[in-house]
Every structure is written in C-alpha cells, then in structure tokens.
C-alpha cells in the first residue's frame, strides 16, 4: 500500500522531486529532548491503553469521555487552536469515514510531534483508537514525516503489538513525501497526497468533513491533539482552568527541546526555562510566525495575547536569537522560504511571495521607499484576503511584524 501510494505520487510530475534536503538532515541531527514534559513523563508504559480498555470494558461511557474532552477544552494543536469537539461535531452529520492523523510536522524548528511519536507512540495510538470509537470510524491514515524513521518504526510496532485492542480499526501508518515539501502539511494538500495526487491544497468549501478523502467525510487531526486524550482522561486535574501544550524551544539557548507549557502563561516565563543567552529577539509561531524584540516578551502566550502583536501560536514553535543576530536577516530567510514553498496554485501567493522577497531585498540594501512600503502593505493585505490556504495567508506575517516591531512602520 505504502509503496503504491508513493509511486502514484511521484508520478505526478516532478512536484515531489527536490534537491538535497538540508531540512531532513537538520531534523535528524537535532536532539529531541523532552524537558519539563511532566504530563507525558507521568504516563508510564504499564499504563498504556488503560483508558482505551476502560472504554472497551464499559467502565467509562462514550458520553463520559466526550464530557471529559469538553471539560478539558482541548484544542487542535497543529495550528488551528479550534476546540477538538467543535471540529468533530461539525463532521458528525456527514458520518465521517476516515480519520487522518497529520504527523508531517513540516514547520521548520518544530519537533513536538516527533517527540511524541518517538517516545510516546502508544499515547498517540491510544488517542486515535479512542477517537475512532467515539466517531465510529474504522479507517485511519497516520502520515509520518519521512525523516522520522525511528518514530515510524515505533508507531508501527505499537500498532502490530496491540492488534487485539485495535481489532476494529484499520490503521495505515504511512510515510509522507520528502519532508522539504512544506505545503503537504496543509490538511487538504495532505488528502491529495494520500489520494496520489499533486499535493496542492484544495479549494474550501467543501471542507474535509464534508468531502475529504475520496470524497468521503474525513476528520483530520494533529498528532499532539490526539495524544492528549488519554492524558486528559487519566488526569483531568491537569486541565482544570489550564490548557497544557507542547512547544519547541530552540535557537540561542542552553537547553533547547520540547517543553510542556500552560497556554496563557507569559512568554517570558515560558522561555525562561530554556536559558537564553544575550536574548535580543524572538520568533513566535515558526517560520510563518512573527518576530518581536525582547522588550515585548511580557505578552500572554495564547491566541488572544499573541494576536495583539500580529503573532500566532502556530504549532508551538519558539526560536530565540541573541544579540549577534539580525532580525532583518531572519525575516528575509522566511521570505525566501515562502517563495520556494508556495505550492504555486494561486496567484496571490505564488506571485505575492516573490514580491515579499523583492521587498526584503530592498530592506537589506536599504533601498526601501515610502512607496514600496505602502505597496508591501497592499501586497500583504491582498495575500491575506485572497490566498487559498494558510500558507499564503500567513506568508507576510514575518515581514509585517518586522516592520511593526523593529521599524515602527
């Protein structure tokens, strides 16, 4: 099955062909260390699948499970931050047939899903099995970043060792395309990839829960989101008035790694643990996120707090930079990235990303003018308003936040 899908995919022109992948190498060399991930550490191997067993043995009812998820306020951890139940509820009238678990984690400098799949694969499989029971789904596509070889093996092992518990669920653990293909992480592009088509996002509507994989209603969830389900059933108190979430802290810090944080805490407190050295500025939300100077780190790390600064949580990526770094250069790297990674489908994004790069080049050369700055704002606005998917909508965030917070423009 896997080989078949890959073959079909690669035959769709050379979209999936890419040069020597620096990104894969980087994903392989960075140590994936969990630090202060207390909820995960508190879950021992012996407890694996206990929550699922409780459900199978009718010790807790489906309604009780749903209530617990509702009370926890668990939100999509892949970047949407939409309450999980809201997403599921929208799908119920369409009788979802497939669950797609997105483990591509294409966002550079992000390894939280890798961390889970590598060290806690049983949590993810348990979470997805519980979801399948609740949603009456028996076909799952779990797509793993193809640089995550060990994680893939660990997951496959958990699936094959627990066939009894998973007997009504058909779980396809599959590799994604070349991890350089950032855009395939977009949920509808992922559906196209699974179907063997070019991994371009689809026009929405129809939404995946209306017409997803092979036109059937499909639920797409992130690895982290589903992994929290067994944890919240086991320790509801962890979620009392709190929203735990994993973040990846990296950059000029002594202790890079995966941290469990409470959403809403101040960014300052969150990054404190990583022990930054000579902190100068921060990138929040990954490469499509924004840059802020050190003086703004008092902001609350959640959707509302960050949006006031034009930032988003994204997939929980935070990078810290010391005073030898230049925010302008970092911003230009993002612009370059998007110019390469736009899937090329729609005009606002394909052309807009090239305009953003031209503008950042102007800034690097100190050639910007009032006119080019105002053009840049129009370009950004148009990309946000008219791009088909999140990539085009977010691609201008780095340059806009740079202008706002570092240049007062």
């Amino acid at each position, binding site marked *: 099955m896997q080989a078949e899908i890959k073959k079909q995919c690669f035959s769709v*022109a050379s979209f999936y062909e890419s040069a020597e992948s620096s990104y894969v190498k980087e994903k392989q060399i960075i140590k994936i260390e969990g630090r202060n991930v207390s909820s995960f550490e508190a879950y021992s191997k012996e407890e694996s699948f206990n929550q699922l067993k409780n459900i199978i043995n009718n010790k807790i009812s489906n309604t009780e499970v749903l209530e617990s998820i509702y009370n926890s306020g668990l939100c999509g951890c892949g970047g949407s931050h939409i309450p999980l139940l809201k997403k599921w509820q929208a799908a119920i009238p369409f009788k979802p047939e497939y669950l797609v678990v997105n483990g591509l984690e294409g966002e550079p400098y992000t390894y939280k899903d890798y961390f889970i799949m590598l060290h806690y694969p049983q949590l993810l499989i348990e979470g997805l099995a519980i979801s399948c029971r609740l949603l009456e789904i028996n076909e799952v596509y779990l797509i793993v970043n193809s640089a995550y070889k060990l994680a893939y093996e660990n997951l496959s092992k958990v699936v094959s060792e627990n066939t009894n518990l998973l007997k009504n669920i058909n779980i396809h653990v599959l590799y994604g395309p070349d991890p350089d293909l950032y855009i395939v992480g977009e949920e509808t592009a992922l559906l196209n990839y699974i179907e063997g088509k070019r991994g371009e996002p689809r026009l929405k509507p129809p939404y995946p829960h209306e017409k997803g994989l092979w036109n059937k209603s499909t639920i797409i969830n992130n690895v982290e989101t589903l992994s929290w389900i067994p944890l919240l059933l086991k320790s509801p108190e962890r979620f009392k008035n709190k929203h735990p979430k994993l973040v990846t802290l990296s950059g000029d810090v002594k202790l890079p790694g995966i941290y469990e944080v409470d959403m809403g805490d101040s960014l300052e407190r969150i990054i404190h643990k990583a022990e930054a050295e000579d902190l100068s500025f921060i990138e929040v939300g990954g490469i499509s996120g924004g840059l802020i100077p050190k003086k703004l780190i008092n902001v609350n790390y959640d959707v509302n707090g960050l949006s006031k600064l034009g930032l988003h949580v994204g997939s929980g990526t935070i990078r810290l930079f010391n005073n030898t770094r230049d925010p302008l250069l970092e911003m230009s790297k993002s612009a370059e990235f998007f*110019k390469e990674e736009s899937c090329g489908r729609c*005009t606002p994004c*394909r052309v807009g990303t090239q305009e953003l790069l031209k503008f950042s080049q102007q800034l690097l050369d100190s050639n910007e003018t009032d006119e080019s700055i105002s053009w840049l704002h129009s370009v950004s606005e148009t990309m946000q308003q*008219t791009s*088909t998917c999140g990539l085009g909508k977010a691609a201008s965030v780095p340059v806009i936040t740079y202008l706002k917070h570092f240049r007062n423009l």
Partner: protein
Amino acid sequence: MINISINNQALEVKAGKTILQVAKKAGLPIPTICHLPGLESRSVCRICSVEVEGHNKLLPACSTVVEENMQIQTQSTKTVNARKVLMEFIIAEHGGIETLNTQVREYASQLGVNSARFYLHDQKLKDCNRYSSDYIQLAQEKCIHCDRCIRACRDSHIINRSHRGSASLLTFGEGDSLLDDTACSSCGDCVPVCPTGAIYSDR
C-alpha cells in the same frame, strides 16, 4: 429561489448558482480570468474576489455558491484594492501587458492598472519549452498559471503544473515528458482558452 443582496440591491435568485452567475444576470459584471464557463472552477487567479458580509476574507465569486440572505459587495474599496494588486501580479508574472488577451487588458484598464513594478518571469523557465510538440508550443515564461489549459484538456494527465513556488512550471505527462510522448492527440483544445499566448500553435 433565495433572497440575497448585491451592492445593497435586494435580489431573488436561483439556489445553487454562483455569485458570479447571479451578479452577471443582475447586470453587475465581475472580472474573471481563470474562470471559463463549462470548466470546473479552480479559483486560482482571485481577480473575481468579492466581499461577503460575515466573512473576514474575500471570496471568489466564480466558485462561491449563493446562500440565503447573503450580502455581497462587488465594488467595495477592499475588493477593488485587492483586484488592483492581483492585476499587477498577473502583469508582473506575464512580463508585460501588451500580449495579454483583449479581455484581460480591458479588465486591467477598468482597474486603472497598466504596468507592474517588478517583472518576475524567470528566463530559466524557457528551457522547459522544448518539451512542446510540433503542433502545440509553449512559451512558459508568459504563463500566469490560470490552469485553463489543464482543465480544457480532455485527459487530465497530459498538462500538469510541476515544481512549486516561483519555479512553478507547466509540464507534460509524467515528469518531464515530451508532449509527443503523452496521449496528446493534437486536438488543440488548450490553445484558444489561454489568455496569455503561453500555450500556442503556429499551424
């Protein structure tokens, strides 16, 4: 029938129609480039963007189906500004305005856009033009990726977009096949639909 309003004018329209269709019928034309009646909508150029109450993003009129009580603005400042930028993008990517087809040039002049600040086309793209056949030729560097040729072709595997970002290309068949090595029957259906002359036939 359902009730909607376009530019504050109340209308009763057929359910299941797109904003573009009902606006046209009401005598309120909306510019389009990638849209072509009879072909599936892909909404890639976004020049038909309109503002719909309750949506914080502009929606493509060519594929958005009308809903009861929809309040649509086809000429708001936000809409017109976005169209201007997009038209400039099209001109930038095509490499000028003169060789765009009359219809697109007319929309450009209505929007008051007649040039672009940057011209983006990459001369390297020209290398790929050699894959065309004797009958159907490609001037890749003029292409604005409206996808019309892809959709007009009877076989969905013959013309494809490949690569991505600023390197997006039209290619034929699997990977970099010659058009002659695909199932192309030289019917020429892709040629007249092209608004830019990027795919052409000099026969």
